């Protein structure tokens, strides 16, 4: 078997094997999932090294014809994504090992392994239809993941919301792929990359549709609204795996592919991309400030990070894209770690509400340290990995000449840090509530993956050159861009930007805490209740800005119009003919009076009409 199939076929088959194992068995399903994900990770590593130091592995099989080949290609960028996907599957398998609150274990691991298989397929696909196949296929497992996370109705409702938003975005992607494939005359990603499309007419429409698919996958505004709901209604392992890691990796990977490899973007589209990114950063970071639930707050920050990534791709220059790809990995690492800390806290305390938590540093020191490291990294604090990746994004944005977007991104970083200060303070510092006196550290299986991820934050910060040279630079070359390592990064001014960001957030937090009389969970209330913002937050609270909720609110009216149209056609084909026949029948009854001269007159009239018709038209043929 071709090695490239291992990360796809093995978990796909093993997932069905897991379904055969009884739910009663202890750790058998977990062990199998762990073993399979470990083999996938090893396979992904071998595929990656082959792409980096040897020949990229490929597989082409005839599939559905018409250019829809089952084509996989592990170049340096796709194998990097595969490696990251496999790493997160492996770490999630460890984290979930003894995590009870993940729904039925059988279905959890079934979904985990299927997600690994489909995500790996999406990353490796060298054919747009194959990519679409794996990409959209993930939707099923995402929905089942959420629906089975908790037994309550809210989880099922959120699962439906996630399904519908992603399905609609998937439909856009399908239409975009159909248009692009038609315009390009090929469905091969490599083939189209060799002769890039220009954004004119239908091609532009195709790109925009694919863009919707890509950014919605990464969880960007305005397709993000299922994420905060899922944070409340699903399990921490799911949040740490799918929205935090998988979706970011795949969404941004595909966005980079289409924006750099498949199409030559013009200035307008670049501006659209960067505006979307900046808007996502700001809106989500502002919303994060208002949250009082651990996972929900993190979910908004996950959305905000998607904004940085889109902004980075929008720069279209090597520095920005290097930063985007690096930050894609970093944000996935940090967010996954943060959701794991949320899961650990929720598991040990039974609470996610910030007002019910506090002072857990002493009880859960490793979790707290992991939180601090990953939060600092995500806020771009030196010398952690986020500092370099966000720095590169700033560099890219400034090089592209869009200073307002740089300011937005820096403001986003300050807001992100402000949220983390509120969250960290409320959960790990201050006084511990009476009910949490006996709280213990998470078990080894929970702590280990968190520690690994936190370590990655530190190592890839101090040794940023390593991931940049071995993961990012080769990936950039596959996108057709040259990369000049960190030489082009203006570390000194960016360090001062970082300092300003930190100072702003710290001052804000101290002021907020003082205003809230020491209550850390209310440390951002002075922003929430500021003039104008107060009204906006109230509208947001009422889901006024949630396109899904607004659409669903107005859907019955729209569907009602269509239903009336259907009834109208029913009237036309059923009621109206019946009415017409009855009316004709009643009208003709009037002539059937039994009066002989009338019958004679009608017969003569008919005969005259016939003669006239025949004489005029020459008779019936």
């Amino acid at each position, binding site marked *: 078997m071709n090695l490239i199939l291992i990360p796809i076929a093995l978990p796909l088959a093993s997932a069905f094997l897991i379904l055969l194992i009884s739910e009663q068995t202890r750790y058998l399903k977990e062990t199998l999932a762990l073993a399979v994900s470990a083999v996938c990770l090893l396979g992904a590593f071998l595929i990656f090294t082959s792409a980096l130091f040897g020949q990229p592995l490929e597989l082409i099989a*005839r*599939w*559905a*014809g*018409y250019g*829809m080949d089952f084509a996989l290609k592990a170049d340096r960028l796709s194998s990097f994504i595969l490696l990251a996907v496999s790493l997160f599957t492996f770490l999630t398998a460890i984290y979930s090992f003894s995590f009870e609150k993940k729904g039925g274990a059988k279905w959890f691991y079934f979904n985990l392994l299927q997600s690994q298989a489909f995500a790996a397929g999406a990353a490796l696909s060298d054919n747009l*239809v194959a990519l*679409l*196949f*794996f990409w*959209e*296929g993930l*939707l*099923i497992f995402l929905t089942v993941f959420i*629906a089975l996370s908790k037994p309550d*109705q809210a989880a*099922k*409702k959120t699962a*439906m919301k996630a*399904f*519908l938003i992603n*399905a*609609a975005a*998937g*439909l856009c992607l*399908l*239409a975009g*792929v*159909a*248009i692009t*494939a*038609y315009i390009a005359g090929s469905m091969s990603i490599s083939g189209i990359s060799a002769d890039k499309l220009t954004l004119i007419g*239908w091609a532009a429409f195709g790109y925009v549709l694919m863009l919707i698919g890509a950014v919605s996958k990464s969880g960007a505004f305005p397709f993000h609204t299922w994420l905060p709901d899922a944070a409340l209604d699903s399990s921490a392992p799911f949040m740490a795996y799918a929205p935090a890691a998988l979706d970011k990796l795949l969404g941004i990977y595909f966005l980079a592919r289409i924006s750099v490899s498949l199409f030559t973007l013009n200035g307008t589209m670049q501006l659209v991309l960067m505006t979307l990114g900046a808007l996502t950063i700001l809106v989500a970071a502002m919303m994060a400030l208002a949250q009082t639930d651990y996972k929900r707050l993190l979910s908004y920050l996950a959305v905000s990070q998607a904004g940085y990534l889109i902004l980075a791709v929008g720069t279209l220059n090597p520095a920005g894209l290097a930063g985007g790809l690096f930050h894609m990995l970093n944000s996935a690492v940090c967010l996954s770690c943060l959701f794991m800390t949320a899961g650990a806290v929720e598991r040990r305390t039974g609470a996610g509400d910030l007002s019910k938590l506090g002072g857990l540093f002493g009880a859960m020191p490793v979790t707290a340290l992991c939180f601090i490291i990953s939060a600092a990294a995500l806020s771009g604090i030196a010398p952690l990995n986020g500092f370099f990746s966000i720095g590169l994004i700033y560099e890219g944005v400034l090089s592209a000449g869009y200073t307002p977007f740089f300011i937005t991104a820096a403001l986003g970083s300050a807001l992100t840090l402000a949220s983390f200060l509120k969250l960290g303070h409320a959960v790990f510092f201050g006084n511990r509530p009476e009910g949490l006196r006996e709280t213990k550290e998470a078990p080894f299986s929970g702590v280990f993956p968190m520690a690994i991820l936190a370590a990655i934050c530190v190592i890839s910060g101090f040794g940023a050159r390593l991931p940049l040279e071995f993961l990012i630079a080769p990936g950039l070359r596959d996108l057709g861009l040259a990369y000049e390592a960190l030489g082009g990064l203006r570390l000194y001014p960016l360090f001062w930007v970082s300092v300003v960001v930190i100072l702003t957030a710290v001052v804000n937090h101290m002021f907020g805490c003082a205003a809230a009389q020491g209550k850390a969970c209310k440390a951002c209330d002075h922003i929430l209740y500021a003039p104008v913002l107060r009204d906006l937050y109230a509208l947001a609270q009422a889901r006024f800005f949630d396109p899904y909720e607004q659409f669903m609110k107005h*859907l*019955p009216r*729209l*569907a*009602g*119009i*269509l*239903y009336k*149209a*259907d009834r109208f*056609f*029913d009237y*036309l*084909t*059923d009621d109206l*003919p019946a009415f017409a026949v009855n009316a004709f029948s009643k009208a003709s009854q009037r002539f059937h009076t039994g009066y002989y001269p009338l019958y004679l007159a009608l017969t003569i009239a008919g005969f005259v009409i016939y003669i006239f018709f025949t004489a005029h038209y020459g008779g019936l*043929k």
Partner: protein
Amino acid sequence: MDIVTVLKTAVAAPIIGVFLIPIANKISVKARNACAVALGLVTFAACASLLSPMMKGLTATYSVDFPLGFDFVLSADLLSVFMAAIFSFVSVIILVYSLDYISRYENQTEYYAMIALFLGSMMGLVFSANLLWLYIFWEITAIAGWRLAGFFRSDRDVAKANKMLLVAVFGGLCMLIGILMIYSDKGTLDLRFLKGEIIPPAAAALLLAGIFAKSATLPFSAWLSDAAAAPAGVGALLAVVLVNAGVYAYARIFGAVFATPAGFSCLTLVPAGLSALVAAGAALIEKDIKRILAYSAVSQTGFIFLGLASGNKTAFIGGLLYILMHSMAAGALFLCAGIIEQKTHTRDIARLGGLFKTMPVTAAAFALASLSVMGIPPFGGFFSKFLVFKGAMQNANPLVLTLFFCGALLTFLYLARLFYLVFLGEEKVQNPKEGSALMLAGVLAPALIGLALGALIYYPCVYADLLAARLGVNLE
């Protein structure tokens, strides 16, 4: 057995069954049931065994001469065998499912005899190579469908069946006039001699009206949602087989025989697109599970027309695959609705909820079939939907594309709403039981086949490709 005999068997077996079933009923109920299923199986086996010879390029023709060129000609080619295999397979599934499902009702012998008549006339319809005989079988399907739709004897049900018959008769009349115009123009109705001929525009429009009436496409779509109140097996038969009879007629007449006048594609696609959209919207409002599924069938039939009428090979293949995938999925959905109705005694989705816990197999089959209709991978419906859209893209009519895009969007919504309310919503029915093994087999088989077709998409694609290459006309 030579392929001509197999062809004759495919048509004759169910028609003989119409007479055998009442006789078998005199022996015992089991004998009657066995006879019905056996005849269905023989028909399907005959049709399936023709698939391979057709792919090899063989054709089978059987003819009986009649005066005035009205010869009775049966001809098997890639298209007719493809459709016949689907129709007979779905019929077998329905027959097996009905063994238990229909056992609780009266008039069972009539039910099985009418299914046999329906199947036989469908076989006659798809294998007829003479338009007059195609029309005769066309009308017989309407009569059999009328008796099946009127299976329940209440005034309301009979009125709904009558409505269906009247629409069918109107459509049939349009078709007949169209056929006579072709006869008047070309002097023959033998499709073998008409390939590539240009059809008179008025005749094409009349045939299209007949096809739309049969395939429940706007403005003649309302009969299907009314007829869906019949037993689930009948609903499935009407929504999958009868509706596809119209689709087949389109594929045969306008896809494989006549060259169509300019603008004909648009004349088909705009009503089909409106049908896809309006029916999907109605499905979102409707509360009767069977009516929702009927609207779904109407909506999806619009997508099939999008494939068949877009005028290029990619779309045509997509349309053919769509027929296959939708037949499996819609069949499963209707049969699931039958289980739900029988076990909960209601079709009102507002009174249903939380059935996933008590009816997990039905729920799983329903979910799988819904995903296939939505076109989510790895189900076969994904490929057909993609090909149809890609082919339609070549046509590049923004209005048509917008109508179908919105229709596809609403498909997600109404099926997700239906599944959510019935299977995931708050529990409202006291301990409903899961369906019997036979009924579950009837719903699981087509649902899983929809999944398997996604994995094995290579084979139907090769077949459809051959079909389009050898028979297709009006294709770029």
